[in-house]
């Protein structure tokens, strides 16, 4: 693992940039632990101060230090993205591998469930749920709900790959080696599926963080909680741009861009690395 990271860092510019960006965002999130201010409290600092040494990102019209507020916002948004990705990846891998390898009735049942999720309009449903549970909707619950919607496309992708792997001779070799289907799936097929899983993880994080921004800007999430989305919501509420408090809006937008770019670059760099073809070239094929 260390060697992989070192190689990527040494030979791939995208990976270097991604590391810097993501580290910056991560450090920001970690700093939330030592924040002098509670994000739930307002009017602890003077309002509408432009960026300065004392307040690097300035202060908001709600009397909060934007820098320290953002540490919580980033932490919560990342948490949401990671949980959503983890939940939906688990479902996608399980459904994709099972449907692909077992085939037959299992495949048909799983894929009809899959397709029902595909055709469900996610945004209206999320809006409805948020509206109904407004106030009680915790970040974890939101992440789980989004996770439940984030898997079907990727499950199909994994299934398609397993279907073609199943026809390859090495799967038959494993069968005639007396290997059971669970072990075939894990040993023979999972290594080929992992690049897809990784690619879709990053994709899924981007999707869920973006979705949360959408919900928040509409005012449908728990706006007392600091996230990238709620920051923008509050800034809009106080007409930050009209009032000239541009730093209040610039901070979340720039941090979101850095986070998204970092994730994207990490995705494309690592994806190329774990592509079986690259792995083959590396081991000298």
């Amino acid at each position, binding site marked *: 693992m260390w060697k992989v990271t070192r*190689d990527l860092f040494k030979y791939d510019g995208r990976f270097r940039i991604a590391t810097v960006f993501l580290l910056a965002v991560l450090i920001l999130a970690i700093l939330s632990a030592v924040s002098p201010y509670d994000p739930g409290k307002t009017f602890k600092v003077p309002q509408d101060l432009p960026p300065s040494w004392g307040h690097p990102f300035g202060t908001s019209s709600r009397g909060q230090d934007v820098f320290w507020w953002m540490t919580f916002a980033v932490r919560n948004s990342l948490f949401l993205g990671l949980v959503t990705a983890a939940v939906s990846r688990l479902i996608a891998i399980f459904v994709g591998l099972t449907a692909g390898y077992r085939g037959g009735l299992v495949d048909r049942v799983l894929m009809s469930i899959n397709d029902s999720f595909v055709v469900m309009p996610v945004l209206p449903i999320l809006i409805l749920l948020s509206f109904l549970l407004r106030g009680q909707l915790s970040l974890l619950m939101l992440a789980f709900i989004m996770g439940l919607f984030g898997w079907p496309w990727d499950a199909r992708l994994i299934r398609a790959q397993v279907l073609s792997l199943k026809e390859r001779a090495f799967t038959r070799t494993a069968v005639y080696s007396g290997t059971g289907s669970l072990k075939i799936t894990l040993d023979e097929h999972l290594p080929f599926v992992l690049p897809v899983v990784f690619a879709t993880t990053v994709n899924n994080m981007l999707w869920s963080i973006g979705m949360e921004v959408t919900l928040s800007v509409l005012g449908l999430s728990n706006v007392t909680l600091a996230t990238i989305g709620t920051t923008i919501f509050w800034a809009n509420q106080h007409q930050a741009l009209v009032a000239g408090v541009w730093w209040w809006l610039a901070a979340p937008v720039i941090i979101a861009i850095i986070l998204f770019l970092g994730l994207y670059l990490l995705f494309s760099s690592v994806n190329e690395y774990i592509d079986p073809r*690259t792995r083959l*070239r590396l081991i000298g094929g």
Partner: protein
Amino acid sequence: MALLSVQNLRAYYRTEVYGISRIVRAVDGVSLELQRNEIYGLAGESSCGKTTLIKVISGTIKPPLRVEEGKVHYQFGSFEIDMLHISPEDLRRNVRWKEISYIMQGSMSVLNPVRRVITTFYDIVTTHQGYTDRKAFLGQVRAHISKLGLPPDVLNLYPHQLSGGMRQRVAIALATIFQPSLIIADEPTTALDVVVQRGVLQMLKEIQAESNNTVLLVTHDLAVHANVADRVAIMYAGRIVEEAPTSLIFNAPRHPYTQHLIRSLPMIGDRSSRASLPGAPPNLANPPGGCRFHPRCPHVMDICRVEVPEMMTLPGNQRVACHLLAEGRR
């Protein structure tokens, strides 16, 4: 003057992945001449460099493949070209299809799967001859097809509607429509059944006999060479080890590798035991020094391990690269 002369050609693949650089010496010191009006057979096992050699000869040199050294020189009827320095535009407009055409295994890639065969003909003829008259074009193609003994209705079919053998014969028809000086046939019958293979090769041979052009026939199947080629070259690990007229190669092979290949061929009616060579062809990223066959050679000598054997010409136009011959002469 030979149609094609290749001199001391070296073409390597250079790759670098995450700091690990590799050089694959796919073609490493090949010299050969193709004469007019002959079928030249090139034989060799997988990854012996024959595909790379064809890529260079036909001017499809793309990174990571690079020509390190050597000359590839053509003398067509009216003009000559240096394949390593020709502009892509010149190659496309004046050489491809018109002077050098290419038939490959399966030939699905030359026939567009979603268009009728006639359309592919149209595309090729119009880009290379500037035809605008559809009637004259159709006449030319029909005449060509019927001369080759193909049913005229194949032109209106889609490639997937043709059987493998018919598809390959259509590919040959396409490749010969401008009467090129050189036809490169790369494993043209490898995926085909024996009965169909026989038909396709018969057609190729007839065309050659009629238009007196040159065919470079590449296949690993020595029995095909025995029946089709005029001369045969045997490649091993990036080099040609022996080249001779077909009957000499089969009746009096001189290189130990060729001798082994010929002797190990099974034949119907003969159940005598066939031996197999120890070892395997070398990895061209890390080939053995000296003669590349020496680790497997039953007659290996000390000199074989250090010195690359020179190509020597023997009576009967037989060329062999083996230290045993120099030894015998001394």
